């Protein structure tokens, strides 16, 4: 209840724009031509077959990977190395600092910025409540289940108030039931916090459940964004609703070509090696 009046503040402005981004290692080009933008408060899903380069793209947005061409702007400023402008929720739970409690993990960013302990405490209280971890504040990551650890990661990133929250298949390692709960939870958290999210997944239903806009990527190498789908289904969404099923069908045929292309490429790679 308190959360609704005290909505988590996110910085305003056009959050992310990516134009003609090219990423590669040596002669090998992974991503070639990623054109998209994410407005403030928007939830964008990058959907593509495994190994297509969507993780590479999000890694570059986070500043962990240098781009070879094109431009990547966060709130109008080019990405130059990792910064608190972009917060990353990783797939693996090893991203949590396991010598710190959940609360200390959530307070890490504000502590590094030199914020006082009472202020930090307020921030962590608010975000632990937001993700439903108030009772686990003083536990260590190793004492929590996979789903709770991902909640902790989300709280830690949101507490830092980044312009863009990046999520790289954050629920990929969870079992099906927990994954479904976390998807619903993320929908709720996103609506309450009003943050901008770029979410990478290969799961069509996950994209439909969560995204305002779904961007389909082609199979790598030289992956690009080939199509964009606005999802205007009412939230909370139901993947068995007529609209969702129809969208699923469209996306499946669209992405199916890419999956086949990816398989062909892998076959080729195997023959070559």
């Amino acid at each position, binding site marked *: 209840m308190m959360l609704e009046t005290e909505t988590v503040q996110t910085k305003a402005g056009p959050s992310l724009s990516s134009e003609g981004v090219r990423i590669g290692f040596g002669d090998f080009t992974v991503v070639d031509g990623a054109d998209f933008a994410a407005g403030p408060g928007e939830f964008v899903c990058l959907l593509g077959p495994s190994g297509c380069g969507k993780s590479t793209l999000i890694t570059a947005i986070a500043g962990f990977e240098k781009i070879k061409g094109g431009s990547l702007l966060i709130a109008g400023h080019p990405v130059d190395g990792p*910064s608190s402008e972009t917060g990353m929720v*990783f797939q693996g739970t*090893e991203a949590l600092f*396991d010598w710190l409690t959940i609360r200390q993990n959530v307070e890490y960013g504000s502590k*590094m910025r030199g914020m006082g302990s009472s202020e930090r405490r307020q921030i962590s209280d608010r975000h632990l409540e937001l993700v439903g971890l108030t009772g686990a504040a003083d536990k260590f990551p190793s004492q929590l289940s996979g789903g709770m650890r991902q909640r902790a990661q989300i709280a830690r*990133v949101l507490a830092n108030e980044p312009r863009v929250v990046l999520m790289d298949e954050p629920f990929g390692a969870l079992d099906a039931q927990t994954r479904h709960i976390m998807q619903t939870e993320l929908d709720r958290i996103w609506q309450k916090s009003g943050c901008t999210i770029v979410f990478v997944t290969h799961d069509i239903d996950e994209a439909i459940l969560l995204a305002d806009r779904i961007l389909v990527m082609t199979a790598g190498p030289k992956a690009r964004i080939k199509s964009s789908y606005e999802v205007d289904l009412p939230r909370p969404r139901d993947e068995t609703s007529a609209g969702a099923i129809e969208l699923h069908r469209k996306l499946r045929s669209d992405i199916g070509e890419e999956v086949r292309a990816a398989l062909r490429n892998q076959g080729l790679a195997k023959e070559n090696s």
Partner: protein
Amino acid sequence: MTQVHLAQRVKPVARPRRRYDSQIRKVAILIISVLAGLVIWQVLSWQFGPALVASPAETAEAAFALLIDGTLWEAITASSYRILLGWLLGVAVGAPLGLLMGRIAVIRELAEPYIEFFRFIPPIAFVTLAVVWFGLGDMSQIVLIFYTSVFVVVINTMAGAVATDETKLRAAASLGASRFQTLYSIVLPSAVPHIVTGARLALGNSFLTIVSAEMVAADQGLGVLIWTSRNYGRIDWTFVGIITLGVIGFFFDRALRLLVSPLAKYKAKI
């Protein structure tokens, strides 16, 4: 009805009791192990006679005599002081240096040739130099202990720093931590188990070094006790010195492990 009630009451009691039993078992095995050692020692002393092997009883008697006249206590405090100070300095210098070497390529490239060069020169090789530079006594011993400790701590810490989980480093960076903040808030805690291993190995090295260094370059200490007892033909004093070394080493290591056990807590919970 009453049976169910009983079962519920018995269960929580059963657990601590099992733990208690395993403690007793541990202590019992320790006692058996020590007794077996004493028996073998006794047999050996009968076999070779008091001129070669002092029996447990003779050793205890000698230890008591040396304790009474203060020699043993003086030797223990002198050696312990040198070991502790030299070793602490070695860890205090070695751990930060290892962290920096593990994460910053230039520092690693600058320091590595020296680390690789000096770690193959045993401290004994420097005993004479140490005496010339620092004189007979504490200073030269402490420098030698420092020398024997620092490299093993550096190498272990560096291995830990290099092995820091990449995802954690990335998470810290995207939460806004600077390079230096990442070093002490992520790399250091990740490397703690490696640092502790390095420190324990260094402690072992310190005991190896102290005896030989004191034999050459000191006027008191356990090394001196062992060396002079040979001059007097007192094999029992030699035994006292040797056993005392083992006992203090054992307790130092236990104390170190106790000291760092809170640090290892989060790991144990996994």
